[in-house]
């Protein structure tokens, strides 16, 4: 007898639908480790040996995932199986036992609100994860309030200190934001070429070739300012203040102030170190000065050694 014949026989013997009997048999077989045909044969009261011989023992207990779960909880151990699988003796219908609730929950009382015709439940419990989060969230919030009651400290969440006089944001230790020691030549190069303030390149050209302002390349900047200190003074003051504070000409060749255009004062926009760095960059890159010599000239001996 093959599976379908056994199934028909078993379902007739038990007077239960074939679908249910088949599913139960597979589940029982999966739980007890015998072939489903064996189980069906037991239930149908047929000779077990005949059934086992005709059925390939290796046939998989097919929809195990679907049916095994409800039975597993109630499935007896293999030793006890012999006693339990005796449908002829007890005439017990082989329905899988009702699945026990994992966590017995009170069945919510259902009611109908008359006017809108809406069903509602009188449920009093919450899922545990939700109840737990309702407790945790306020605790986190209160913890936050207690920890940060006074607002952000400097450095928290990107917060900076603010200079009390100028109102400008600055590093937490009060130094100018982003000021970096290190290589003054690199700082000068960065400052020279930014498009925003000080925007040296917008007038003097990216390569120092000049534009609105005079060219710096080819050594001309060093010819105009043989001494670095004069160059620094010029950048610090700009044309207007130079005329007021120094005179109508500038540089070694006594060029007229304003002859090459208007240059703004960088006194306020840049720190003295930054001005020195830009000047250094211009003298080395465009003026062709030796880097160590120019560094000593513009920044002093100590800096030159550090830079070298």
């Amino acid at each position, binding site marked *: 007898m093959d599976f379908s014949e056994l199934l028909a026989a078993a379902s007739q013997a038990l007077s239960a639908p074939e679908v249910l009997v088949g599913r139960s048999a597979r589940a029982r077989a999966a739980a007890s480790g015998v072939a489903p045909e064996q189980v069906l044969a037991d239930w149908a009261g047929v000779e077990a040996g005949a059934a086992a011989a005709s059925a390939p023992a290796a046939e998989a207990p097919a929809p195990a995932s679907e049916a095994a779960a409800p039975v597993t909880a109630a499935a007896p151990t293999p030793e006890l199986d012999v006693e339990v699988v005796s449908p002829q003796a007890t005439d017990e219908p082989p329905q899988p036992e009702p699945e026990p609730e994992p966590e017995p929950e009170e069945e*919510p009382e259902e009611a109908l*609100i*008359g006017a*809108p015709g809406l069903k509602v439940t009188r449920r009093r419990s919450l*899922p545990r994860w939700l109840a737990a989060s309702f407790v945790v969230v*306020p605790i986190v919030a209160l913890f936050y309030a207690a920890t940060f009651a006074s607002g952000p400290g400097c450095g928290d*969440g990107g917060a900076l200190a603010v200079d009390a006089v100028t109102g400008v944001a600055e590093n937490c230790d009060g130094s100018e934001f982003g000021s970096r020691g290190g290589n003054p030549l690199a700082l000068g190069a960065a400052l020279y070429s*930014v498009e*925003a303030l000080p925007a040296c390149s917008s007038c003097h050209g990216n390569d120092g070739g000049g534009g609105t302002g005079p060219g710096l390349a080819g050594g001309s900047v060093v010819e105009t300012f043989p001494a670095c200190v004069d160059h620094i003074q010029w950048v610090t003051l700009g044309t207007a203040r130079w005329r007021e504070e120094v005179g109508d000409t500038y540089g070694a060749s006594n060029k007229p102030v304003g002859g090459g255009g208007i240059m703004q004062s960088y006194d306020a926009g840049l720190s003295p170190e930054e001005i020195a760095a830009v000047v250094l960059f211009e003298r080395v890159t465009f003026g062709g000065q030796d880097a160590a010599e120019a560094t000593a000239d513009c920044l002093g001996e100590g800096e030159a050694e550090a830079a070298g």
Partner: protein
Amino acid sequence: MTTDAEAVDVAVAEAPAFDVGTSDSLAQIHFRVAAVFLVVGSLAGLFLAIQLSAPNVLNSGPLSYGRLQPLFTGSMLFGWVTIGMIGAIYYLLPRLTGGPLVDERLARLSLILVAGGTLLGLVSVVFGGNQGLPLFEFPFYADIVLIVGLAGVTRVVTRTAIAHREPDLYISVWFFVAALWWLLLSYVIGSLSFFQGSDLEVANRFAEVGVLFLWVVPAGLGIAYYLVPKLTDAPLYSVRLAAVSFWAVAGSFAWVGAHTLTFGPAADWLETITIVFAIAVLIPVMAAVANLLLSIDWTVAHTSTPVRLVLAGTAFFALLVVQVLGLAFRSSSSVVQFTTWTEATFVIVVLGAGSLWLIALIAHLTGMSAGPARLLPLGSAALVGALWVGGLLAGFTWASAPRSREFLNFGDGFVNTTAELAGFDTVRWIAWVLLAAGFIWVGVVIVTCRNWRTSPVGEPSAAVPSDEPGAFPPVKVAVASVLVLGVAFVTTVLIPALDSSDEDPSFRALTTRDYEAFADDAPSPQAIAVLGDLGLTPALVAEGREVYISEGCVYCHTQQVRANVTDVGLGPVTVRQDITLSSPALLGRVRLGPDLAHAGSRPLTGDVDWVTRHLSDPRANRSWSSMPSYDYLSQGELDALAQYVVSLQ
């Protein structure tokens, strides 16, 4: 599959003691009016998105970006969602309370006032009457009409709830009654300028949160809590949990007003309060989302258009946690604040959650098929994605600019920090094509629907046990909701205002930002000296500020420098004392263009002629600029606007 449970549950023999036909037709009129605003708002939103990529499209006077922006937000929020939700409430309330709408005549009159006030306000704003406070741009006469209308609606709804015949009041009634009180009070606080300077800014943001999080969200939740059990013919998972979500909405959202002011001129302790309650926003969101999801039979859900729309709206509601916390926490705020992230709040609440919940009910009543409405969640999600990812990218680039010193976050350097955002602008208009198609289709369905579904009202239930949420009297809900908002107002607006009232204006405020004195031609001697030195005329500066407000410059430019890494290089940090004489302070929320707090102190933007030229032809100087050309302004207005920009020292 929309079940016909309504018809089945109630035998025709138990005919109601009143006729819902009149209130149902009133609800339909509301939906039709709302649909008109929906179409207008969708077209405005689409044009805005196109103009971001192509600034010259349709750019002239009433159709310029800064005027379309309030037309878009106003018609979407007040025209479409507000009037639509009022219609939804008029449809649902007689069924939920078992009694007719109390005073239908007042309800009709209120519709005329709400729609008329909104229309009046929108027309005024488009023709230059903007008042400079985001979401509350309408001039006072439109505000008053709108407020009277909203008060009428609130009265009708509260009285109908109080006169209930059904003893077991479903939780949606709480949401509707409270939401209308919150809308009314928030609109009063937002539109009537009781405050000055930074206090006005704080009050504006309190009111903004009020109309978005305490009106659209709870009214929409009320609809969702009705639709899910109704359409699936299964009870809501837990009415008690819904009651928890109600009190949690009231107890958390009202306090997060200042979440867009982090690092701003408000007091530090106010920021901390905001963050604490922004964390607490998790509770109403989790309670509501869990309740709706646990109620839904998923085998039914995917076959029913209204249920799918409710679920889509609920998904956007869940996103709100990320949105609010991202702006509230100081560390994340230092990245996303002032980026397009900020714009996502409106999309999530109004275009996402609010519209989808409302359309779910409308789909139930019109029997419309999903059709192009499928585009709506897709479009909103694409929009939120573009705003979030674009915002994060912009924020990190801005923060890296001062660190690297290779470029700065203003002037010509601004392009370096926004260059990669052009792609997101493209996503925005594509998303808007989807949204506009979906919304316009919904609008057409509403206007052309001739066969609205209806359901009779059943016999009221027997008495309900007194410890059930349904037995809580609506009058107490109304009082409690007003009290909660009142306490939030006192703690997060009034006390901060009193706290800062004894502070003197800063030198910056007295010299360059004393606009009332400038307008009255009575500037202080310091102001004359400082402005004169800059070559500016005080009266023109004040006039230019009016142009700045009416042209909606505030929608793209901030005037606020924060004490954080991102803003290094933008000049002195903006403190309360700087803006105490400027009402509104025009701090702004988004930097689609550079910050202008100290525009006048910089090269180029410190020169009146250059600014005038830049305003009339932005791409002549900066090819990358997405600013609309203002050559439609008169030469006098342009000059005044340029003087104002240069006066920002």
